[in-house]
């Protein structure tokens, strides 16, 4: 007997729904067994997660705060994934975006909020685009593997950040601690509705709409989808894949760079050592789970935010250690991603 996986030609809608529902159910069951073995009631634990993610206006707002950078970075990587170009450097691109935004605040501070913020956004977008563009160019010119280059560029971005916060940008009044001066008021994205959700959320909705149109309603989107599906066919049709790679990587990095600016201007208000674009890698899972559909990624990012919030809830409400919370998160993602496999492949059992 042999197991064989063959690709489904098309998966009907009911099948997609069923596999998703089933894999979520399996995920919760497996997680429940794990929680039970930890000596915690699974029902109480899931209730705690739900309550702390969606239980009140405050909880919803904090889930959204977690989801915001995830959603933006997932839009960024989604674009390149559609073309089967693996930009996994969202984290690093967001970092240089934040760096560029901080540089503008340091060297060209202006009092007007709209002017200051647009300058920061512009700088962040170009820096992020440039960072990813390097990998795009290397790929286009010499076919250098972009998975390696984007990943390595993440580390360079991290070291760059450290160089600046420990070195030339260090706040002299910080007693030597590694952080820049607090941003001037004009450089802070206003927060909304008395929560920590900032103006970046409008940009997110706008970007999502733009990406939805770009990917599914324009010639550009059509071309990169064809290139993703069948690069050879695209070449025969006269599409210039290599030129597109640079463009796609640039836009992808630009969006990630913008996410970095949102994080540093909306939440942190200064650059400090250990700054992270927050879940730059998790955003890759979000992009994948939303089947590379921009509009869907809004929902998936929000659910992922809830899962992340749940990790804290399990520690605070149920007294579980961090590791248990992370195992539970991992289990749930494992089953949900596993379900994806069965959507795309049919498993056959061959006798003999």
């Amino acid at each position: 007997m042999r197991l064989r996986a063959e690709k489904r030609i098309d998966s009907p809608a009911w099948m997609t729904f069923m596999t998703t529902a089933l894999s979520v159910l399996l995920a919760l069951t497996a997680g429940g067994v794990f929680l039970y073995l930890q000596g915690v009631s699974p029902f109480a634990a899931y209730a705690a997660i739900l309550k702390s993610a969606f239980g009140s206006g405050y909880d919803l707002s904090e889930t959204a705060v977690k989801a915001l950078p995830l959603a933006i970075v997932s839009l960024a990587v989604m674009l390149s994934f559609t073309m089967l170009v693996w930009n996994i450097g969202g984290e690093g691109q967001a970092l240089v975006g934040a760096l560029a935004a901080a540089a503008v605040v340091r060297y060209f501070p202006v009092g007007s909020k709209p002017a200051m913020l647009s300058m920061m956004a512009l700088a962040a977008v170009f820096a992020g685009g440039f960072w990813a563009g390097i990998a795009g160019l290397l790929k286009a010119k010499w076919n250098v593997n972009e998975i390696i280059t984007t990943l390595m560029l993440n580390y360079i971005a991290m070291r760059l950040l450290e160089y600046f916060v420990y070195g030339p940008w260090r706040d002299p009044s910080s007693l030597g601690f590694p952080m820049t001066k607090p941003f001037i008021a004009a450089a802070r994205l206003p927060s909304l509705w008395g929560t920590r959700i900032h103006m970046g959320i409008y940009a997110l909705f706008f970007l999502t709409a733009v990406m939805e149109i770009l990917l599914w309603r324009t010639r550009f989107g059509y071309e990169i989808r064809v290139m993703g599906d069948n690069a050879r066919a695209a070449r025969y049709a006269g599409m210039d894949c290599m030129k597109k790679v640079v463009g796609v990587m640039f836009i992808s990095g630009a969006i990630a760079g913008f996410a970095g600016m949102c994080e540093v201007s909306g939440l942190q208000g200064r650059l400090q050592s250990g700054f992270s674009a927050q879940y730059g890698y998790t955003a890759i899972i979000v992009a994948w789970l939303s089947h590379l559909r921009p509009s869907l990624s809004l929902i998936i990012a929000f659910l992922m935010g809830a899962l992340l919030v749940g990790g804290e809830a399990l520690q605070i409400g149920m007294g579980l250690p961090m590791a248990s919370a992370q195992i539970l998160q991992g289990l749930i993602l494992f089953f949900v991603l596993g379900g994806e496999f069965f959507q795309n492949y049919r498993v056959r059992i061959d006798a003999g």
Partner: protein
Amino acid sequence: MKKSVLHVLFVFFVFFSFFAFSIAVNAAPIPVAEINPGYVYIGPVGDGGWTYMQDEGRRAVDAAFPGLKSTIVESVGEGPESVPVMERLIRQNKSKLIFAGSFGYMDYVEEVAKKYPDTIFMHVSGYKRADNVGTMFGRMYQPRYLSGLVAGKVTQSGNIGYVAAHPIPEVIRMINAFTLGVRKTNPGATVKVIWLFSWFDPGKEKEAAKALIDSGCDVLAMHADTGAVAQAAEEAKTYVIGYNNDMSQYAPTMHLTAPIWDWEKLFSPIVKQVADGTWKSEAIWWGMKEGAVDLAPFGPAVPEDVRKLVAAEKADIISGKQAVFTGPIKDQSGTVKIKQGETMSDDDIWSMGWFVEGVLGEVPK
């Protein structure tokens, strides 16, 4: 006459209202069962070092105050993600007291404290205070200095290695105190520093330790959150001085000693003050006198004369007869920074950004 009576009355009222106001600012006593202290940790409790020791302190405090119910959150990043953690401790767990266990939480503690004026925050190792925010730390440089005396006596080659987390004043003053100790017992010895740029990274810590051993160091000291350096030293049969806790379990034969924390001595009085309603915002910086920091028991390799020397110096530090940062102290270029007979002020020690003579390595500029 009338005027002066009015004056007296006025002054009296001003005093009285001031007095009443200051009573209002001092929090009312809180029953122990309702304090629900929340502890925000930078690493996992299982790090075998920094967070492990904070949690040991928490356990001891819980045991000492029957009815006290504490909650911990591990591995909380030093960014905006720490904000909802503190808020949830307050909102869900009704925490009246939050201990934020690492430097990078500083701005976020400030932010949350503004929003929740009825909760008391104690920030470990920071310098920003508010009406409901105090700071706390230990004078770890005292046992660091003592451990330096040991290292100076034990080294044969005069090359001592130091695995250091971040180039920030806390770490720099420890390296300096250690080196002062080393050079007191071994004037020609040097201390070579490798930066990790991380508090918690066992892989990097071990690699740094190996690199130092390969470059000829025969005693290692370390400032990071885990026992990885001690493990590497044991494997290479190199003497090692731990940090945070007695790390002899990681290096049974090679462990000399370790400057260690006793967080209970820091946490416990705060819980007591909050319960009594006597807490007020201040900068706590306690040393060996208060028991907040100490030196771990000596390993088998430490000779008797060194033990005696350390005991004598320790007694002098506790009695206040001697301070670690007393001149003459030269910097790396040989310039005298602290003159003979002078002692550095707490502010200068707190913000130290330069290395003393004998340190090999540099503070990134």
